[in-house]
């Protein structure tokens, strides 16, 4: 199977502090993978590098076999059409209604008819449980509803690669469970590749079969999520158990 995402010795630093230091990641097509790590270790940064919102300092990124970081503007735009991104603070356009927000990726891709756009937006909003809120503005929604609108906007164009930055942050356990369920159903239907960044390690472990852990710019763990407890790396073990004593 071809790799959906492939990073080879990816480097990025701000000032003198290296955030990513020769990171190698490979995600097969249709794989679901979680990314964990302490605060400010470059998890969000890695997602932004993968969709070309930030430029890397060194290394190579391939999305569906196409080189992303050295490509021209048109090629980058072409690659982005296959990527859906959920931003950490939702990034809903606050001057647009919920309907226009969700329809935006379809309208911009220009390939679908107005009738079809309406139908897809309706379907997606129903899937995230937000039928009836189409005409509201993001400012009128609660935190969980905003997150679900943002999710709908990431899913609506059915991209082959989905990047989620903290899809469950600030949500109650019931909503969190619903969101994971929704992502699972979406994945079963579209076989999209998903990369999830989350600080909720326990919830993420139950959902994803494979986990990556970033620490001090290096990838410290890359393997099945049920084996992470017995990792040989002391840092990883301490982080996952939430122990007070250890190298962290």
């Amino acid at each position, binding site marked *: 199977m071809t790799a959906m995402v492939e990073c080879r010795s990816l480097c990025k630093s701000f000032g003198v502090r290296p955030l990513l230091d020769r990171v190698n990641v490979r995600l097969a097509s249709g794989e679901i993978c979680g990314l964990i790590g302490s605060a400010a270790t470059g998890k969000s940064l890695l997602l932004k590098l993968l969709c070309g*919102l930030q430029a890397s300092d060194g290394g190579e990124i391939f999305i569906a076999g196409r080189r992303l970081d050295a490509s021209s503007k048109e090629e980058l735009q072409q690659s982005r*059409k296959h990527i859906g991104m959920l931003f950490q*603070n939702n*990034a809903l*356009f*606050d001057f647009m209604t919920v309907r226009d927000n969700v329809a935006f*990726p379809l309208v*911009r891709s220009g390939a679908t008819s107005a009738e079809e756009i309406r139908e897809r937006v309706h379907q997606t909003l129903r899937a995230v449980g937000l039928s009836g809120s189409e005409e509201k503005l993001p400012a009128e929604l609660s935190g969980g509803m905003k997150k679900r609108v943002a999710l709908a906007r990431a899913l609506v164009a059915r991209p082959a690669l989905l990047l989620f930055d903290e899809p469950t942050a600030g949500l109650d356990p019931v909503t969190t469970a619903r969101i994971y369920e929704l992502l699972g159903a979406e994945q079963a239907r579209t076989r999209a590749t998903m990369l999830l960044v989350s600080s909720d390690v326990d919830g993420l472990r139950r959902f994803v079969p494979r986990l990556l852990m970033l620490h001090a710019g290096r990838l410290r763990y890359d393997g099945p999520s049920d084996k992470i407890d017995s990792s040989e790396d002391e840092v990883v073990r301490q982080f996952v158990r939430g122990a007070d004593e250890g190298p962290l």
Partner: protein
Amino acid sequence: MTPISLLHRAAPSLELLRHLLWRSGRGAFRLRATDFPRGEVWRQMHQIGNRSLLFVCVTLSFLGMVLVFQTCLQVNRITGDLSQVGAEFIKILVHEFGPSLCAMMLATRVGAGIAAELGSMVVTDQIDALAMNNVDPIDYLIVPRFVASMVMTGALTTVGVGCAVFAGALTAAYSFHVNPVVFVDPSHVRIGDLVTGFFKCAAYGAAIPLVSGFCGLSAQGGSAGVGRSTTRAVIASSFMVIVLDFVISGVAYFTLQSAP
């Protein structure tokens, strides 16, 4: 800090500025070819124009009263002939105070508004979300504001001048017993004054959205960052108005005003 590292840090800002100038200039002439939703220019014209109308009318009326009051006091002290005050007031209003004071007011209202809106879009990742959908933030956000501001600055100045003349005539009539018919006398306004006023409106209307859009798009760091960029937008666009006023007045003094 060495000059090299300063240049290095300024490079992204300079790049943004270059894009802003180039895209806005191109966008203003080729509206159809650029990339923003239909009706966006109208929406921005409403936002910039209609919603500043009351503010501009009130401030310009009061400034008109003050200017006439001061002038009449002074003229009373020297010659006592108030019949020319109205005509001269209208003349200076058209080529100087109308456009400049109106633009100072718009720099605070419109400049702060644009920077606050764009700044909070930057810090909540909305600009990145636009980029993910292959939308250029300058084409999509700045060009409509640029066009709307150019049109609306002129329109608001016209209305503002009207308000100032009306308020000035009232002040002259009540406080100094000048007949409004004598006061409202546009005969001193030359074509040169109109041209100067027009150029000032166009320059201010272009400068305010560019300067405040630049400040808004370069915001970083949460709500404190939005506050900082809004502040910078107000100060930079007000200062831009004063500098442009000085430059255009200077050029007009040597070219248009020296014509009889």
